[in-house]
């Protein structure tokens, strides 16, 4: 009874996403009869855009409220209201201008006429987007198999530990070393994610609980390693690891003056891989079948339990790759906050990208821009605003009805995300 109920509930959500991409269907004729795919995609983009605008509008209110001079002016609001509005306007303008300058184009640095001056903000956006894309792929892939991977933090930490250890402890010639370090990082994350999958397959423990707990365990494991000789950097005063060899650095893509590194290529490669995996591979078909309806998948002879382990291993490996990008690209030494909140941000990326590879790349870029801009915006308003914006965007996207009601848009079918996490009974 439970099961049939859950299936019946999930089915209408999953149909559009799966049906469009199901390998069995001929690609020319979309089986989705309600609306043409073009209008659905257009509607989706419109809703996404409006969600973004609405979130920024709410953010603007927060900025105005938190601005000291605006609040000073509001004390005499009724005698001279214009002051309040102009000060609020300038506070909001300054903050969002800084957000734009940090993320996309900064006229002040561009005035230097150097490459870094023109492209610096974009480079920052890409640096921030890299781990978010890979992390988003990890969460998105798990979503497609009906699993919710909140364990990104732990998997990123494990990936960074493995990659970092190979990076600073082993010494060998360049190409092997960097490949080995990347693989080690993916293995580390994969094992950590696979553990959660194994626990689910063998004991039925829900992955939401186990992955969160594994996050903490990974965090304290790292804290321990950062206090151990051989891992910790001399003179052993700080909780920071040895620096990785120059051999294993992911090379900068736009010259040494900008931070964007080859991790971005790895992220794009991973996106292509996940796209292929979900769309064309037998494994991907299996995963989607399990995600859509584990009972039907079992009846069809698919190893549902095995698929949990497999998908969590791959998801973990992807997060491990995010860790690799953090330790071999963005940083060179592991610190306690090497994951930098990416594990959780990746969830919002996956949701915004509707758990499909292409969407996730764009979502990662958007949130990467928010993060890059957030650090320059910090001069005007607390950086936590980025988190608020992020959660609001995802909230509105998850509930497109809110946006449609706000802007009086007609409903289109099939714009709800392909993302699904099973309840406790699933």
């Amino acid at each position, binding site marked *: *009874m*439970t099961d049939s*109920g*859950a299936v019946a*509930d999930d089915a209408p*959500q999953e149909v559009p996403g799966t049906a469009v991409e199901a390998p069995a269907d001929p690609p020319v004729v979309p089986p989705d009869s309600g609306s043409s795919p073009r209008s659905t995609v257009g509607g989706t983009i419109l809703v996404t855009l409006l969600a973004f605008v609405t979130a920024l509008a709410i953010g603007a209110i*927060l900025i105005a*409220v*938190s601005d000291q001079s605006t609040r000073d002016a509001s004390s005499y609001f009724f005698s001279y209201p214009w002051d309040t509005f102009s000060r609020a306007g300038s506070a909001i303008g300054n903050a969002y201008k800084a957000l734009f300058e940090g993320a996309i184009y900064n006229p002040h640095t561009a005035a230097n006429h150097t490459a870094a001056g023109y492209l610096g903000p974009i480079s920052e956006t890409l640096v921030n987007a890299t781990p978010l894309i890979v992390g988003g792929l990890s969460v998105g892939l798990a979503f497609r198999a009906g699993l*919710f991977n*909140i364990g990104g933090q732990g998997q990123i930490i494990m990936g960074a530990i493995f990659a970092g250890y190979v990076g600073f402890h082993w010494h060998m010639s360049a190409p092997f070393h960097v490949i080995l370090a990347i693989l080690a990082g993916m293995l580390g994350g994969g094992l950590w994610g696979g553990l959660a999958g194994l*626990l689910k397959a*063998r*004991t*039925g*423990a*829900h992955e*939401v*609980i*186990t992955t*969160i*707990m*594994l996050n*903490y*365990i990974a965090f*304290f*494991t790292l*804290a*321990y390693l950062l*206090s151990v000789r051989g891992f910790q950097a001399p003179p052993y005063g700080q909780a920071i690891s040895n620096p990785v060899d120059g051999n294993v650095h992911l090379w900068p893509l736009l010259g040494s003056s900008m931070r964007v590194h080859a991790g971005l290529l790895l992220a794009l490669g991973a996106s292509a891989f996940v796209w292929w995996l979900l769309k064309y591979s037998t494994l991907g078909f299996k995963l989607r079948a399990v995600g859509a309806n584990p009972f039907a998948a079992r009846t069809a002879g698919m190893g549902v339990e095995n698929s949990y382990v497999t998908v969590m291993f791959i998801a973990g490996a992807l997060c491990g790759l995010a860790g690799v990008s953090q330790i071999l690209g963005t940083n060179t030494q592991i610190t306690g906050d090497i994951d930098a909140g990416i594990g*959780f941000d990746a*969830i*919002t990326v996956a*949701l915004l990208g509707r758990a499909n590879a292409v969407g996730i790349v764009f979502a990662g870029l958007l949130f990467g821009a928010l993060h890059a801009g957030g650090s320059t915006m910090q001069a005007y*308003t*607390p*950086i*936590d*605003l*980025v*988190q*608020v*914006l*992020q*959660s*609001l965007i*995802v*909230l509105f996207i*998850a*509930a497109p*009805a*809110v946006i449609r009601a706000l802007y009086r848009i007609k409903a289109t079918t099939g714009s709800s995300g392909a*993302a*699904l*996490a*099973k*309840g*406790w*009974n699933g």
Partner: protein
Amino acid sequence: MTTLASTEDVVVEHDVVDTTRTVARRLGTGGVFIALGVVTIWALGTAVRAGHKTALKFDAPNTYFSVHNIDVPGRAVIIALGVVVVLLGLWQALRGFSKGTLPIATAVVGLAFMAAFLCWVSARAQGTQVDVLGLMQNSIGLAVPLILGALGGVMCERSGVINVAIEGQMLAGAWAAALFGTVLGSVLGLVSAAVAGGLMGLLLAVFAIRYLVNQVVLGVVLNVFALGLTGFFYDAFMQPNTASLNTPKVLGEIDVPVLSHLPVIGPLLFQANLVVYLAYVLIIVVDVALFRTRWGLRTRAVGEHPKAADTVGINVLAMRYRNVVIGGAIAGLGGAYFTVGSVGGFSKNITSGNGFIALAALIFGRWSPRGAVAAALLFGFAQALQVMLSITVPSIPSNFLQMLPYVATIVAVAGLVGKVRAPAADGEPYVKD
């Protein structure tokens, strides 16, 4: 005659099918018990020198009469406890406890192991006193927010809405309690914590019930939202004006007359602050309300089979709204414990994942208030033990001890609970046909 034989056949067959499944389980559980007992005897018992005493402290000042602290030869007691555990394990493996007695046996095994462990902690340091009463006091203190968070979750999930946002509700509560507790006084701070938690609950309810958003996902997003919003306001207002906005008075200890002077249970249960007493009350209220009132029956009906509930005239959505908001308010109170209930001021992410542990307690406790409380106490104990061990056994790296509550959670959820059965309609939005 033949009919009798055939029924016997059926019975025998049934029995065989049943036992092949249970034997492995029985042997497995028994094996775990035996292994634990052997570990107790070998690793703990033999590690203690024969002459060393174990001293366990149960006494506290200001009680009617003092209790004798336990002062025993360490090794003998540890080995005796280990033998008890092994014997229980052997019985389980060979004969098997019945369904009713196995939980008791498991509890005895757990307690015996913990007692042996504490004896070891004391005896290895040549009879250093281990403050068992203090340990239990800390356990309860650390468990209170978990209890409230889990009770909030019970309210939500029994009515059919998954609440992964306990963490966010607690965080909002902690924040509101600190801010309004400073401005309006600590007791009103508690009220505002409940309101803030309730508002977070309302947000969850609206998006889950009205907009049919996937509830697990929604919960996580709301956690990020709460973290961002409280962090934003903390940076914008509270941190620059700490004195006027972030220094609530910590709720004072209230001693219950007479009861607080009873030895052991007095200091343990009846010398606490308002949040703790509220937690006691809420445990009883939620338990009674859920299983003894009309409202509770409706709540459970809505959580198990909304369609049937709707058919008999229960307003499914209204029930769910009400329960989710009340649940959020209770979790918000739990959050208040972190600020006005213990340290006073708010800091970013002050709940630090306790909402997720409360969620695990809720699942471990199988969605029942009593089970959730027991699980919360267990996790509270794990945290308290970690604090105690980091002082008494400094040779264990503190980071490993800090993992303890989380490892305990995984072991509990994976090893003891396994595949759970939530309320049947938990997480399923109800849409009228």
